[in-house]
């Protein structure tokens, strides 16, 4: 269910664009935020309905853009580690292996307590400070094993 807050957000978005349809991407993102990073079938239907689109359209959008997590179970902290070239040259693989061991999951998985999800991603535009990762909305750069430990222990 879209919360009143999310609806207010979406309503605000509609003025930004010439067509209601233009608001569909940010609207879906708001809906996902509201559910701590997960997008439900109901949200997809409701956003479509709110904007005046067939639900197929929201399904298309969430399937195309990688930042939507439709019908997935993303943990409280979504750790995305860049594995593209610049990061890889700077030992990103090693960081990923370390995280896999530390969290006891493979990349692509969520820990049992639903606290962490680990994903390997393509370039995040932070190549000069490789290796790097993104946790929810924040970037963490120039990673080393000890820095990773510190970052994780500082999460709320």
């Amino acid at each position, binding site marked *: 269910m879209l919360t009143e807050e999310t609806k207010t957000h979406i309503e605000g978005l509609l003025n930004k664009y010439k067509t209601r349809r233009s608001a569909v991407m940010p609207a879906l993102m708001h809906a996902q935020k509201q559910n701590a990073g997960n997008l439900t*079938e109901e949200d*997809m*239907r409701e956003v479509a309905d709110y904007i005046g689109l*067939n*639900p*197929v*359209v929201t*399904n*298309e959008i969430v*399937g*195309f853009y*990688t930042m939507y997590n439709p*019908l997935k179970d993303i943990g409280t902290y979504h750790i995305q580690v860049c594995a593209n070239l610049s990061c890889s040259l700077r030992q990103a693989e090693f960081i990923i292996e370390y995280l896999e061991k530390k969290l006891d999951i493979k990349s692509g998985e969520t820990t049992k307590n639903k606290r962490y999800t680990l994903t390997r991603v393509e370039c995040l535009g932070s190549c000069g400070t490789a290796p790097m990762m993104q946790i929810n909305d924040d970037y963490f750069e120039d990673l080393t094993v000890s820095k990773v430990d510190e970052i994780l222990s500082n999460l709320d």
Partner: protein
Amino acid sequence: MITLTINDKEVSVEDGTLILEAAKQAGFHIPTFCYQPILSRLASCRICLVEIEGQRKLQPSCVTPVMPGMKVQTESQDVKEARIGVLEFFLSNHALDCPVCDKGGECELQNMVYKYGPKKGEFTEKKERFHEKDYILSPVIVKNSNRCVQCLRCVRVCDEAVGRTMLGPMGRGAHQEETSFLKSYMDCDQCGNCIEVCPVGCFMRLPYRYRARPWDLKSASTICPYCATGCRMDIQERGGEYIRAISKFGKGVNSELMCARGRFGFDFLNNEDRLTKPLRKKDDGTFEEITWAEALETIKTNFKLSSPERIGAIISARNTNEEFYLLQKLMRTVLKSNNIDSSPRWSSDAVSAYVTACGINEGGTSIADSIDVDTVLITGSHISDENPVTDYLLRRAFDTRRIGVIIASPRAMKLDSSAQMTLRNIPASDGTLLKAVVAELYTAKPEAFKGVTGLTKIKTLDSATLSKDCGVALDDIKATTGKLLKSDQISILAGTEYLRFPESLEGLVFLRDALRALKKDLKILPLLDRCNQRGAWDMGIHPAFTPGYEALEKEGLGCDRMVQAADDRQLDMLYVICENIAGLYPDAKYAVSALSKLKFLVVQDVFMSETAKLAHIVLPGAAFAEKDGSFTNQEGRAQKIDSLLPPPGEAKTALEVIAAIGRELDYGFGPSTADEVLAEIREATSMYREVEIDTARNDSALVKGKPAALRIADFLGKKRFDDVEAENKPSLPVPVVKVKPLSFKLVTGNHLFYSGTIARRSHTLRNLVSGPMVEVSVADAERLGLSDGDTVRVKGKYHEAILTLKSKKGSRDGIAFIPENFTEVGLNRFLKRGEGIQEVTIRKI
């Protein structure tokens, strides 16, 4: 014109032609996947790449327009290699399960690889797979995404032509899968156009899956037996069973488009309840089988016993022109009776007025021409449900050419989304609405109206009052008027509501004459709901005119008057072909009681209908796929139909039976084959003399005009619209709807999946509708605390029924719609002869 060379051959083509089309004109075939002329351009599959001199890269011929002096190669080494490269890519992730694929043998990918290569693929990796087993998307659609070539024709046809947007590409890149919202079951038009446009075996017909290989099928080219859009299709059988109907690109008005009824509704032909033997009613009311000789003998005797004015014939508008012609010939020349008609749903007077108002007697107007205008006004038709493919064709034209569309209808419909304006008038007030528009036109340009029909009356029309009477705001009427004044070319598409409520025709005639007086280029296209309704009229299936609309000196009885005459015991004998009077006459009780009083009722039909049950003799009939002959669609396009299988058992075509009865009565009666009858039709009426009755798409298949044959003044209660003022019948008294809490006006028409008696016998179509339903506006449903799917009791003065509720967004409040053809409900049981629209209440149970 632009001149260029293609493969060193010089060609001249229209400005703006695509290279692909130019090549075709020059005789060179370029393969395509994503290109579909009626759909938006994608240029994504890259199979159509060609070489253009001076261009570094190969270019997609499906989007590149020709330029003067261009030098194009469609078969150069580069082009050939690119083509093979693309095909190899297609095969790389294609399931290659051709042996079990429905499409095997008629697959575009298979054919293309066969023709161009690669001879051998080098792809040895694991293929991307979307799922293990086929999955079902609807009662008629089954999906296998592992075969997809990503041409997106399915997605585009659904969105752009059908207007449903049920399908989309989900996922990205190689993981992209065209399917429904989260692969859920689709509540859609079920038209199967996604199946038809799919080049491979990705979308399949569920009822047909694994039933046959295409090369085992026998086909005949025919016309869909449902509405009067007149879609051309190939009907196919295997082992005596009708198994598939397909539409083909570039054939017929519809090209590859069809609706659910057309594509899936043919299976009534296979129904185990088909009548196969002539039957005679015994004294105890049950039927016994008899021979044709016995049947014909009995019929002959009864015909001979009755005097001409006591004999009548009613034939349904699903029969062929040849059958119509021969029946009226039998009636008029042998039996000397003009008591002949085609539908119990409306009066023959209404037909006369409609025919003249729409200019049906003045020859055909193609749908292509009708929509190549500035503004289209759709009135008196629920076109999206009644003529689905006409809706599809219109949508595509409206959306691409941005034609102004105004839709006037009490009920909301799918095509509304393509309209600039939708007017939600009170039921049966279509004419009142048009009069309001005429009043405004008159106010705007009074000087133009000299000599317009009914001017005295037009002068006194008051748009404010009329706007109240039709329930459409005056501002909307003014806006409509404004749009009409601004347009040079206008089309009016007028539907069957004008036949149900013929008083509305006065408004249509006024508007027609007003627009012509304003020097607008006006076209009127009738929208009809039975495949050969127009043909029936053209062939003189009417008490007041003969083939080609020659008015008769002495008018016979139409269906309505025949029923009345039967009730008054003024009619002795009725010969009914495929028409279900008891089921459709707008007062079921009256019709049944009247028909029961007949001395002799003979009914030929394909199923035992409510009417057939009342008959003394029942003859087994043939359906469309068992007949040769022609149909004339709503445009006035005469189209040939070919038979595929003989009728079941001892059943015979109406043509054979009419000819046989004719010979029983008059040894010289004839002709008796479809071809011979057609030749005689051509002689009998100039309308059909030069018509090319074949599978042509062009306008040579349109019937020609015979303008002077009928005049409006001769019809509609024998009164002229023209300047007969005070005593002229007022428009149908249309009470302003006081929306009492539970009271609704009961209206009817066709359902998207259900029209006419044959649809009830299609198992596939029956599967698509959960059961008889009543539709109200969303607002009304909310007001009553009802939601979709609720079971409700609909109660009228004469009848009540238990129905499933459906709500529709945007419909006018205070209207309850029940489709006219549910046997279980018998809409006509709610109605009373002479009382018009009934009020009903709806309550949840």
